[in-house]
């Protein structure tokens, strides 16, 4: 299935909404600060456009990537632009740009990614598990392209479920992407009764 109806995209957006809500709650608990979420949309985009979906491809970010496997294959990607990374590290009491800081972001990514995945599993009845996250600091475009290429052999579309988690009072934002495989999308929709 390579074409999605508005109803299907709305349902996927709703999944992203709930998943990010849970992730936001987890982040809030970690930071001791209120966290807002916004879920712009679930979009099916050609790969070249998907790379640009999270912002300027040349801009730097720290990316935490969690592959998910089980009943569906998917990848969770968290992107922290440098200033937001610095703010988060400060909130956690670690120095940004150090190995400790890097590791703290990986931990945030792990916790948020797992809470997102767990809420997906609960909502859909899927059995899914994350693999250990990998953290890289590089251009947003390079990070996303490398993640998208892994599953690009049979499709030109990426389903991008994009959320922003905003730490209130701190002007700090991170981007949260769920990129399911083609079969993963079909399975999600099946579980939602919308295949």
């Amino acid at each position, binding site marked *: 299935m390579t074409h999605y109806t508005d109803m299907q995209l709305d349902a996927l957006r709703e999944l992203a909404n709930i998943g990010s809500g849970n992730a936001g709650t987890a982040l809030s608990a970690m930071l001791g600060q209120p966290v807002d979420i916004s879920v712009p949309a679930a979009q099916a985009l*050609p790969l070249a456009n998907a790379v640009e979906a999270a912002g300027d491809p*040349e801009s730097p970010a720290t990316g935490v990537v969690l592959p998910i496997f089980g009943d569906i294959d998917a990848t969770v990607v968290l992107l922290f632009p440098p200033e937001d990374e610095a703010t988060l590290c400060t909130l956690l009491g670690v120095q940004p740009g150090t190995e400790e800081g890097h590791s703290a972001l990986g931990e945030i990514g792990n916790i948020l990614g797992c809470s997102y995945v767990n809420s997906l599993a609960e909502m859909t009845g899927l059995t899914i598990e994350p693999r250990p996250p990998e953290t890289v600091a590089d251009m947003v475009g390079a990070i996303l392209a*490398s993640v998208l*290429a892994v599953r690009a052999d049979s499709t030109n579309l990426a389903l991008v479920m994009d959320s922003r988690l905003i730490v209130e009072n701190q002007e700090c934002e991170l981007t949260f992407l769920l990129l399911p495989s083609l079969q993963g999308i079909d399975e999600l929709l099946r579980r939602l009764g919308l295949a």
Partner: protein
Amino acid sequence: MASVVSGTELMVRMGELATSAVVGEVLVTIGLGSCVGVALVDARRPIVGLAHVMLPESTGDADGHPVAKFADRGVPALAHAVKALGASRLEAVIVGGAQMFSFGGTDGANIGARNEAAVREQLDRLGIPIRAAATGGRKGRTVRVHVQGARVTVREIAGVEQELYGRGTL
């Protein structure tokens, strides 16, 4: 195909290719991770091309995939396009093929390295020599191919722009 973004820069996004013989124009690919940017230049004339290859091999059904997505189609297509502008003696510069993550591919193999190998094989088949390469490693790269002087430059995220190839004032 590529799209004009600003002034004289033509963006070549994932799976796309572009060519130019207009002095002053620059073909640009941003953020090559595991993907490989293949630049072709004419050995003497100001004619250049750039393809952004994502995967080594097409799996049979080529319809609906961007022209340069797979090395086995994209590299020949790029060579054809550059020759259509009048280029004859072609030389190549390749950039990218990094391994940013340790997972990847259905068989777990390193996509970046496989892309580089596939591109090299295609160029070899076409008899096009590779004059410079900035490949492998773990970092993303941005490549710029200038029509003027067939200059090819590479830049990593925190790095300085480096010239990989160029012919001075030609």
